[in-house]
């Protein structure tokens, strides 16, 4: 699916719109007037140097932080995401860098953690195992030896896959991934990138936070770059090259006359 056609498919209204969002921690202004669109069926890469505000923005969307000003629109409607639970009710799932899996639990137990299915007030293990198996198969995560093995025994890529599968299990519409390939080897990275593409092909909106420009250009349909708490540019991947992304990340694009800047500083 080319980026241009995806834009039309996904209608005019992006799944999630962030408008004029501000966040400060005491005297430190972490986010300034953030505008960001996350359309369905597309992978949006959020790039930026350390401290640019990527994580804070993610946490504002995921309901962990409350923005001070600004508005978030979900499917065109203004929403207030006050807690992680609000986010998951809307269909926003976040896959965190540190994975948020319990090592001592097995794959099924981790995928259903906090949302266990019950039968006669006891855990319905058979039902959960079947559902987890289907989800993993639909995402073609097939390299695990047993769905009942503890997560501690999985490789980095497999853990990331389980975390992603856990996120898409709940009819989520937007999956946010924080540095999904940061700790992975070459083969593992490919496995996770393929998985991200499969999510997009299912029509989900995906936001990937990444430093790795190889991954960004491999998987992203759109790129947004943050610099010192602002989104300095966002556009189709085709309108960037590596050089320009690096420039936006390191200087905020101040020296550039071209490019489509969405924010003036």
């Amino acid at each position, binding site marked *: 699916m080319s980026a241009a056609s995806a834009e039309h498919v996904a209608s005019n209204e992006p799944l999630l719109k962030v408008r004029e969002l501000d966040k400060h921690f005491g005297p430190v202004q972490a986010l300034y007037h953030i505008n960001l669109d996350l359309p369905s069926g597309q992978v949006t890469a959020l790039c930026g140097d350390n401290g640019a505000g990527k994580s804070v923005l993610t946490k504002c969307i995921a309901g962990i932080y409350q923005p001070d000003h600004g508005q978030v629109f979900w499917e065109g409607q203004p929403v207030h995401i006050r807690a*992680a*639970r609000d986010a*998951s009710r809307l269909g926003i799932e976040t896959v*965190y860098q*540190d*994975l*948020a*899996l*319990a*090592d*001592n*639990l*097995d794959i099924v*137990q*981790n995928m259903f*953690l*906090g*949302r*266990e299915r*019950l039968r006669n*007030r*006891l*855990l319905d293990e*058979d039902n959960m*195992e*079947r559902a987890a198996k289907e989800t993993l198969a639909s995402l073609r995560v*097939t*390299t*695990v*030896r*047993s*769905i*009942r*093995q*503890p997560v*501690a*025994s*999985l*490789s*980095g*890529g*497999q853990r990331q896959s389980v975390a992603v599968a856990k996120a898409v299990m709940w009819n989520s519409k937007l999956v946010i991934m924080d540095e999904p390939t940061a*700790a*992975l*080897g*070459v*083969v*593992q990275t490919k*496995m996770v990138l393929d998985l991200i593409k499969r999510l997009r092909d299912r029509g989900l909106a995906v936001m990937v936070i990444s430093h790795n420009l190889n991954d960004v250009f491999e998987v992203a349909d759109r790129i947004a770059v943050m610099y010192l708490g602002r989104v300095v540019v966002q556009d189709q991947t085709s309108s960037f090259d590596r050089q320009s992304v690096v420039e936006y990340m390191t200087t905020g694009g101040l020296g550039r006359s071209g490019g489509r800047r969405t924010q003036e500083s």
Partner: protein
Amino acid sequence: MADVPKRADLAEVPPEQAPDLTAAPEAIQAEVPPELVAQTLGEYVRAYAARIRAGESGVLPVIAAMLAIVIVFEVVSPNHLFLSAGNLVNLFQQSAVFMVLAMAEGFALILGEIDLSIGFVGALGAAVTVQLVQPQTTNWPWPAAVAAGLLTATVFGLIQGTLITRLRIPSFIVTLAGYLIANGLFLQVLLLGPFSGYPNLAGFSDNLKVIYNLMWGSIDPTVSWIATAVVVLGLGLLIYLSDNRRRRSGLVAPPTSLTLIKIGLIAVVAVVVVLICNTNRANIGTLEGVPWVIPIVLAVLGVWTVLLQRTRYGRYVYAIGGNPEAARRAGINLSIVRTVAFGLCSFTAGIGMLLYASLLNGMSNNVQGGQYVLYAVAAAVIGGTSLFGGRGKPLHGVLGGLVIGGIYNGMFLVGLSFQWEYIVTGLVLLGAVTIDSLSRRGSASGSVTRV
């Protein structure tokens, strides 16, 4: 997963599928429980052997410890008394206290916490019960007295849990303070009434008799056999049907032969225990039948196993022990789960020390609550519960309690004095924690595995 069968024996076959650059194959082999990948008994045995070679020893240390205890004490005990029916029943009775206390401590250990207070908190509850059933004073009916005692212990535990979770004070400190406070309250309760600090269970009241019989009462041999048959058949059928159903629907399940061996093992243990208990163990007259305490311990084991392994609450306890951050992000209310766990820990300790009161035929200021905490921790860890959280089962407490009970009983038979008992128990605790620590270090990601 079509290629699972050939992957069960990873020692020779390198993982051909999905070359995982980040995972060490020998670590995978060590951490995946053999019953998950083995399709036949042979594969299971090979996978198990591979696990042991890789340092994941499972229940082997506790079995080895039991064998060593049996052999050593049978040889050195006077007249080879250790394996006599009378002594074995005595051993079960003594071990019962350690078993229940170890199951109590399990709640704290699985969470990755520790509760140092359970000895005296349990003793406080037991002292309340023993005081309330005294016919000269309050003369409460025994169910009310037992409930009051257990409630006292539970409330104490809930208060400690609240302090630990709400004020974020380390459990070590809170329960160390709780240990002293409970010790004081316990001594204070003992002084109530006209018993000079030694309320006992001797007397002609039915209520006293029931508390006394918790440890010393026996079930009629015939009834013992019938009850055992019912329980073993029921449990066996449950395990068989459940495994069979999972096999048929293509879910992860052990091979049929393994299911049958497991059921057979339960049956053999049950029959041996009942045989021992039904032997006349009195020097004069008859004393036979299964002591009440055995079904009591099994009931605690059963209820806590279902709670921890089959309910949402239990799953959350393990999740918090494994990765509190993951549990928090999954929307689990950590404070409530933790607080309730400390309450359950103290409640179970109340049962354990009530059994101890029954064993001692009363309560006195000789009760070594501090020492019993260490026995409980040692028993849980010897049985396979991890001190680092996230791993452990009530069954581990029962197995470990038997080991500690064996040492305690054996040294008494041999006539070793108290100082040696302390030293040996300390060494055993150290050994168990060392095994726990080493197996943790040996695992791939430095993390705990088997739940």
